C-alpha cells in the first residue's frame, strides 16, 4: 500500500516540507491550505474495502449497454466477459486456440449441408441461483438473431445462423448446424465473443417489455453465470461489479470492481499516481514510458490485432487513382520514426493487411523509408505537387498516441515528398459518414477485425464487394476479391496460408492502404495489483486479480 493511502489527506499534506513543493503564488497556497484544512477529515471507514476492491480509471464513455447480446463496444465487452459466460473462450494471450468455458467439450462433424457443432455443458449457476441449461444457450443465441443488434451480424451473416439452427436435445447438450458457407473455426472464434454470452432465460423473460427480450432491463442489470454481477451503474460516473456468490469461476480476492469514468489521460495519470485508482486504461506512450520507471507502477503492453493505417481514395479521378502515387505514400512514411518516438515502441512495424499473430499474417517489409524514391514515383505519375484533405479522428489513435500528433508527423513526412496534406480532425461520427460515402481523400483510421481470424481483415480490406474498407477507398481489384473470398472458406490450413500470402502481397503492392503500425495496448497498473492480464481482444479476467 502507498504511504499516501494509509494516511489521511491532511496528514500527508502537512508531513511534507512546504519548500519542496512547486512554486505557487503564496496567497493561493494559503487559501488552498485553509480550504484543505477545513475539509480534510479522515476517510478511514471509506477505505476499509481497499484490498478487495479493484478500481479502474479510463475513458469508458463508449459504454451504452451491459446486455451481452447488444453491446459491441470495448467497455461493454470487457464487462460482459466478467458478467456472462460463453460456450468457449480464449485463455490468456493465446487467441489461436479456443478453449472450454461453459462447454466442457465439443465436436465438429461434417453434415450434408455443412457442419454440426455439438457442445457438452458443465454444471453452472446463474447469479440468480438458477442452473445454466442448454435451453438458456438456445434462448440467448436466438434472442440476438431476432433482436438485430449491432453485433448480431456476427451470428447471422458470418456464422449463417438462423432461428432453429441451434437446438437443445437435452439440458446439457447444445447442437449447432451451420451451412457450407460458414467456416466452423470462424464460428468457434465468434462464440468467444460477448454476443454469444449466455443469459438466464427465465430472468430475461420475466423482465421482457413489448417483445424486447429483456434488453431494456439487461441494459443496466445482469443475469449471467460469470464471476461478477452488476451492483450498480451510475452512468458517466462509475460501474460497480460485485462478486457473484454462485459463480463457478470463483474470485477469491477481488470482491468488488469499480470502473471510474476518466476521459482525460492526464487525469488518469494524476489519479493513478495518487493511488485513487489501481489501473489506468488510457496512457499516452510517453506517460507509459515514464510509468515504467516508477517503482510504484507496472506497465503492461498487450498485443492487439488492430492496424493503424492510411486509406487512399483510388477511385476514378481521385488523388490516389494512380498506383504509383499510393506506392509513393508508402515509401514516404517514416514508420520507424513513428514507432520509436511517437509510440515509444508501443507498436509493431508491419506493412501487410493481416495482423501479426493470426494465421495468414505476412511479416514481409517491402517498403523502406525512401523519400527520394517516393518523389520519383510521384514525378512518374505526374503528381509532383499534390494537395489532399487528410481526415483524421479526434482523440487518441491506436497505441494511445494522440491522433493529431501522429497526423502532424505524417503531414511533415508527406510534405517532404511534395504532398500537401491538409489535416481535418473530425469526430468519428463525421469521419465515418464521409468515409462510408467514399468521400475521404486521405484518411487515417484504425481497423480491428470483427473476429480473430485472417478473414476478419482479408474480406473487408481486399474485397470491394464486401462494401467495407476496399470499397470505401474505391479500390476495386477482381483478383483480390477472388482471393479473399476463396481464402475465407478454405478449410485446408496450408492452402489457406498460400492464398493469404498471395492476397497480402497483392494488396501491399497495389492496394489503397499504407499500414502505419500494429499497436500494443498500454495499461498501467499499481505495483500492488497482481495477476492482471489483458488479451488482444481486450478481455480482462477480474477474478484472477489480487491486491497486496
Amino acid at each position, binding site marked *: 500500500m502507498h504511504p499516501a493511502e494509509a494516511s489521511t489527506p491532511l496528514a500527508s499534506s502537512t508531513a511534507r516540507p512546504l519548500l519542496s513543493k512547486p512554486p505557487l503564488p503564496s496567497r493561493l497556497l494559503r487559501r488552498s491550505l485553509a480550504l484543505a484544512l477545513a475539509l480534510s477529515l479522515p476517510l478511514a471507514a471509506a477505505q476499509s474495502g481497499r484490498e478487495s476492491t479493484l478500481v479502474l480509471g479510463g475513458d469508458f464513455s463508449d459504454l451504452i449497454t451491459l446486455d451481452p447480446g447488444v453491446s459491441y463496444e470495448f467497455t461493454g465487452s470487457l464487462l460482459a466477459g466478467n458478467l456472462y459466460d460463453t460456450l468457449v473462450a480464449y485463455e490468456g494471450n493465446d487467441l489461436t486456440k479456443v478453449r472450454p468455458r461453459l462447454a466442457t467439450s465439443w465436436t465438429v462433424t461434417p453434415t450434408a449441408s455443412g457442419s454440426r457443432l455439438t457442445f457438452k455443458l458443465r454444471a453452472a449457476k446463474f447469479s440468480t441461483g438458477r442452473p445454466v441449461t442448454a435451453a438458456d444457450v438456445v434462448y440467448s443465441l436466438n434472442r440476438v438473431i431476432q433482436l438485430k443488434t449491432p453485433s448480431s451480424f456476427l451470428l447471422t451473416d458470418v456464422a449463417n445462423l438462423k432461428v432453429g439452427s441451434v437446438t437443445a436435445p437435452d439440458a446439457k447438450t447444445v447442437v449447432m448446424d451451420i451451412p457450407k458457407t460458414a467456416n466452423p473455426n470462424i464460428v468457434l472464434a465468434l462464440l468467444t465473443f460477448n454476443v454469444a454470452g449466455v443469459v438466464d432465460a427465465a430472468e430475461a423473460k420475466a423482465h421482457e417489455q413489448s417483445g424486447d427480450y429483456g434488453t431494456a432491463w439487461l441494459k443496466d442489470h445482469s443475469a449471467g453465470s460469470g464471476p461478477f454481477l452488476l451492483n450498480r451503474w451510475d452512468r458517466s460516473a462509475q460501474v460497480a461489479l460485485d462478486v457473484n456468490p454462485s459463480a463457478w469461476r470463483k474470485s477469491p480476492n477481488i470482491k468488488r470492481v469499480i470502473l471510474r469514468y476518466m476521459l*482525460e*489521460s*492526464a487525469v488518469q*495519470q*494524476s489519479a493513478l499516481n495518487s493511488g485513487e485508482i489501481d489501473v489506468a486504461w488510457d496512457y*499516452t506512450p*510517453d*506517460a507509459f514510458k*515514464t510509468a515504467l520507471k516508477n517503482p510504484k507502477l507496472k506497465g503492461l503492453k498487450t498485443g492487439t490485432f488492430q492496424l493503424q493505417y492510411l486509406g487512399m481514395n483510388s477511385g476514378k479521378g481521385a488523388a490516389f487513382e494512380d498506383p504509383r502515387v499510393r506506392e509513393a505514400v508508402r515509401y514516404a512514411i517514416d514508420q520507424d*520514426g513513428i514507432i*520509436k*518516438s*511517437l509510440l515509444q515502441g508501443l507498436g509493431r512495424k508491419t506493412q501487410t493487411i493481416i495482423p501479426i499473430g493470426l494465421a495468414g499474417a505476412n511479416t514481409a517489409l517491402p517498403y523502406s523509408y525512401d523519400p527520394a524514391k517516393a518523389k520519383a514515383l510521384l514525378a512518374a505519375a505526374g503528381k509532383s505537387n499534390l494537395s489532399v484533405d487528410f481526415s483524421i479522428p*479526434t*482523440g487518441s489513435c491506436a497505441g494511445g498516441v*494522440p491522433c*493529431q*500528433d501522429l*497526423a*502532424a*508527423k505524417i*503531414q*511533415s513526412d508527406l510534405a517532404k515528398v511534395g504532398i500537401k496534406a*491538409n*489535416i*481535418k*480532425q*473530425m*469526430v468519428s461520427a*463525421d469521419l465515418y459518414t464521409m468515409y462510408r460515402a467514399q468521400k475521404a481523400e486521405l484518411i487515417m483510421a484504425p481497423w480491428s477485425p470483427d473476429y480473430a481470424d485472417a478473414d476478419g481483415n482479408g474480406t473487408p480490406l481486399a474485397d470491394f464487394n464486401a462494401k467495407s474498407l476496399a470499397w470505401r477507398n474505391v479500390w476495386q481489384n477482381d483478383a483480390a476479391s477472388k482471393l479473399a473470398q476463396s481464402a475465407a472458406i478454405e478449410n485446408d490450413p496450408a492452402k489457406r496460408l498460400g492464398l493469404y500470402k498471395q492476397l497480402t502481397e497483392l494488396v501491399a503492392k497495389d492496394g489503397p492502404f499504407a499500414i502505419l503500425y500494429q499497436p500494443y495496448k498500454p495499461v498501467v497498473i499499481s505495483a500492488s495489483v497482481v495477476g492482471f492480464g489483458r488479451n488482444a481482444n481486450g478481455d480482462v479476467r477480474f477474478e484472477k486479480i489480487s491486491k497486496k
Partner: protein
Amino acid sequence: MTTTLPVSRRSDNAALRKLRRNSGAMLGFVLLLLLLLAALFGPLFLGNPGAQDLAARLSPPSAAHWLGTDQLGRDVLTRVLSGARISLGLGVSVMLASLITGSLIGLLAGLLSGWWDEGLMRLTDIFLAFPSLILAMAISAALGPNLTNVMIAVALVSWPTYARLIRAQVLALREREFVEAARALGSSQGRVALRHLLPNSLAPLLVQGSFDVGSAILTAAGLGFIGFGAQPPTPEWGAMVSETRNYIAQAPWASSAPAVAILLTVLAFNLIGDGLRDVFDPRGR
C-alpha cells in the same frame, strides 16, 4: 453583460489624459505592445514553427530551445511567437465581426422599433439562451474545422451582447435633448443615428470589445479541446494548449508557454477594458 454606460461628452484629450494616469490600463497597453511586437518581429528571428525534430522531442528549456520542445520536437518559443499573430488576429477579428454584426442588429432594432425590434431582440434572446460552446461546436462541425470557421463560429455566439448594448444605447439616446433637437431640425432617422448615436455608443463598445478579445481566444481554445478548433500544425495558442495537454506531466513547459501567452493577452485586454470603463464612466471616479 449589458450594463448601459453613460456616455462621455468630454473631449478626447481629457479622456486620454485620464487613461494615461490609469495604471491598470497602462500596464495593459504595455503588455499588449509587447505582444504586438512579438507578433510582428518575433517570427523574423525564428525558424519554421512546423519544423519537427523527433530526436529532440519533449526536451526541457535549454540554450538551443529557450522554452523547450513539444511532442514532435518543435521549438515551443518559435511556435508561441508565430502563434501570436494567429491568436491575436483571431481575437481581434472575432471581436470586430461580432461587434459590427451585433451593433447593426441592435441599431436596426432600436431605430425601427415595433415588430422589427421585437423580432430582432427575440432572435438575440435565442442566441443568448443557446449554450454557446455547443452552438460553436455545431457551427464549426457543420462548416468543417479550420481557423476561419472557428472564427465564424465564435463570432456567431458573441454578437448578441453588442446587439443588446447598442439597442439600449439607442433607446437611451433617443430621449436625449440633442438628438431631439437634431430631429427637430429635420435630420432623417439614419443621419441622426450615424451622426449622434454611434459616436456616443463608442465608449461602451470599446469597453465590451476589449473584454471580448480575450474571451474569443478562450472560446477558440475550448473548441480546440473537443477537436473543432484550428487544425494541426497551425500554431494557434488554444490549439497548442489543447494538443500539449496530454504531455502535461512529461513536458509542462510545452503547454504552459501558450497558456501563459493566452493569460497575458486576456489580462492585457481586460486591464485596458477596465481602464476605458474607468475613464469613460463620468461617475466612477
